[in-house]
């Protein structure tokens, strides 16, 4: 006699298998909907494959999408470990862009000096942007979801003001952006800049920090149970603040990469939802740092597919619909992974098994 039973833990392999199945289901549903709209699904599918993973151009695009997602995804993952949500990745991204552009526009020197300076300024700006929510959370228990979210709108408007006001491009007279930065992150492969491998490296480094440092352990414990952290005498407030500052710095670094590697100027709306999509990436990664890499890849694929579909006159909102569908199916898959068929095994009962 065998039946399915829910287990408290699921092995990563089972989760992966279930998620793969979920993705197939998602693709099938999208295909069916498009077919129902009278589209030639075969032709669309071929086009999507070629322009994402089937061509050099498509792969370059994927890497470009992935670089900021790796960082904004890590930013949210760091706070998840602490049991918090940083919804303000978008705002910190903008502030990182502001800090980087400020240095790039007004400090002149060799790129080898200016680029690290831009990164530093970006991270400091991002940390400053999340400092208030972090302090309010640590000392007054103010919900960080609200505070970080609301600051996004402030940051977005700040960038519009800078890009169309004091920092606007006086050379070409463009009204929507700052002037072109004199320095940029060098390209390594086509239009893909060195920010991409750096982003991967940062994710791997973060995973190491989380699993093999005292700080990472304390964040893990404090995030899982405030009562235990107090019992063990851990400095919970300091861990809340440091985890949130790190999160803000990571999201801001994504903004710096975007300014110095892809856009080359500061312009309104440039965060392009990368901050919010970081939340999706973190949810897909289930709080694991390394899993941010495949999660960011999947998200980049969806974005890329969206662009292809747009060129075929499918509405841009299709990206949102597909993202939602994938998240829903992945959540179902994660739950399914906890179920395994069991056959009563005749084993000696162990007194101490739970």
């Amino acid at each position, binding site marked *: *006699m065998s039946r399915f039973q829910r*287990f*408290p*833990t699921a092995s990563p392999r089972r989760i992966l298998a279930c998620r793969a199945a979920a993705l197939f289901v998602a693709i099938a549903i999208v295909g069916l909907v498009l077919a129902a709209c009278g589209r030639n699904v075969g032709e669309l599918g071929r086009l999507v494959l070629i322009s994402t993973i089937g061509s050099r151009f498509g792969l370059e695009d994927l890497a470009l999408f992935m670089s900021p997602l790796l960082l904004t995804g890590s930013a949210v993952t760091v706070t998840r470990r602490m049991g918090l949500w940083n919804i303000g990745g978008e705002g910190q991204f903008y502030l990182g862009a502001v800090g980087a552009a400020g240095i790039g526009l007004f400090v002149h020197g060799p790129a080898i000096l200016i680029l690290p300076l831009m990164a530093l300024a970006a991270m400091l700006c991002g940390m400053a942007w999340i400092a208030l929510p972090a302090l309010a959370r640590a000392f007054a228990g103010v919900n960080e979801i609200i505070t970080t979210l609301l600051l996004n709108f402030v940051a977005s408007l700040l960038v519009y003001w800078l890009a169309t006001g004091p920092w606007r491009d006086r050379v070409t007279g463009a009204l929507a952006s700052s002037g072109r930065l004199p320095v940029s992150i060098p390209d390594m492969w086509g239009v893909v800049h060195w920010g991409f491998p750096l982003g991967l490296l940062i994710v791997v480094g973060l995973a190491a920090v989380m*699993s*093999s*440092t*005292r*700080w*990472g*352990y304390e964040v*893990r*414990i404090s995030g*899982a*149970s405030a*009562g*235990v952290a*107090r*019992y*063990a*005498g*851990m400095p919970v407030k300091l861990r809340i603040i440091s985890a949130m500052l790190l999160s803000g710095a990571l999201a801001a670094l994504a903004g710096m990469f975007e300014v110095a590697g892809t856009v080359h100027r500061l312009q309104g709306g440039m965060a392009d939802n990368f901050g919010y999509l970081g939340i999706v990436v973190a949810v897909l990664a289930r709080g694991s740092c390394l899993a941010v890499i495949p999660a960011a890849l999947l998200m980049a694929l969806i974005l890329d597919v969206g662009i292809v579909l747009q060129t075929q006159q499918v509405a841009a909102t299709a990206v949102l619909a597909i993202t939602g569908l994938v998240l829903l199916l992945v959540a179902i898959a994660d739950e399914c992974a906890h179920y395994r068929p*069991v056959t*009563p*095994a*005749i*084993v*000696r*009962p*162990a*007194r*101490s*098994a*739970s």
Partner: protein
Amino acid sequence: MTLPGGTPPVLQLQGVSKYFPGVIANEDVTLDVRPGEILGLLGENGAGKSTLMNIVTGIYQADAGEIILDGYGAEFASPQDAIRAGIGMVHQHFKLVPAFTVAENIHLGWSETPKWTSKAVLEARTRALSERFGFPVDPSARVESLSAGEQQRVEILRVLSREARLLILDEPTAVLTPQETRELFAALRAFRATGNAVIIISHKLDEVMDITDRVTVLRAGRNVGTWNTADCSPEMLAATMVGREISRQNLRVRSGDAVGVSDVPVMTLRGVGVRNERNVPTLSDVTLDIFGGEILGIAGVAGNGQRELTEVLTGLIAPSSGVILLDGASAPDNAAAFAAAGVGHIPQDRLNSALAPSLGITDNMALREYGQPPIGGGALYHGGAARSLAEEIATTADVRIPDFAMPVRNLSGGNQQRLVARREIRIADRVLVAAYPSRGLDIGAIAAMHGYFAALRDKGVAVVIVSEDLGELLSLSDRLGVLCGGRLMAVLDAAEADIERVGLLMAGRGGAS
């Protein structure tokens, strides 16, 4: 009451088996519960009592065997089926919504709750139910403001209002005062008198002897036997549960190579007081010397300053007045420094304050030693070393762990307690503070826990045990402190203390010795 011959049992289990991967939770369990009786269900932690009751209440489905209700076969696909069939369970941890009133909790998820209703109607209905079943409750009170005993009454009333004929209680007296226990038992007897049946799970043998008509003992998932309570003795039941004789050791006797009681106290409290957030004193003017190599018991009715005392002793809260000395020097001001100085702490609520429920065994076992080599050292955390430590603790605690990454909440309460105890004993070089260490444990595990404490004492460590069980305290302690209203009424020599005197002190009379 007398029943006509041939009345079928309310509930009959025949050959019920339930398997989990690698474990037999229940195998071939056959028992019956007759109308108008209270059946005691006994067994050690992990003997399969809870699983069996979860099968009866439809939470689990049996892998083999039959459930027979009033002589007819029954199958419960869900807890709702069992409730409809008249089986109600009161769990050890209450399943009430704290922010709701009593009336709202009673009517929550009940098909007979009127669709359009008002607060007044719900409260009137609740009052009527409360009178009908003889469980006095205040319908308009919020559940979070009620004592454990009152919450339990609400829980029982909710079950009874669904017309339960079989009431299952899982360790109902664990959170009750003696007075509340007496009231509960009186209500259960009244319930029995109307031809209903009760199954009561308990570890307290004297209560089982007092309240039950028959007793069924489970061991390792199997039914060892069922006896009329009148034919049993506590000793015989204990031996049956454990499968071996438990000799009640006199733990005050030290082993031959024991280190004696230290000449100078390891910890000293001078006029220590604690005020809560509303500035009400919860601990007042406690002056106490704790010596190495002794066991100091702290007796008192729960809520008389025990929590504050244990938190002051372990550095979790700083006293608002008075001084604490550790080895003659002024004590550090945070819990981590206390632990580093060799003060171990087994808190009252181990799952939420000593363990991070969602994290793995390894992370939880490293909690006290992650700061030093081999796990810590500098800024690093060595996962491999943490894993070895967790394995070592699990081995000494005699807990079998299938997967060290498994969330610790998946372990049974008894196993969690063993792991916490061993983790704390490892670091307790000077003092071990244990609050209600045997709560929820079976007889074998309690004996093992007491053995740990005695061994620690023999090594010269000061052991402070806070408990409500006077028998436990008197058989372990060298000295016995009594708390009442946040004051330390007296510290007695346990060998000469008599229960009468301690009882008076617990009630706040006859202080100052």
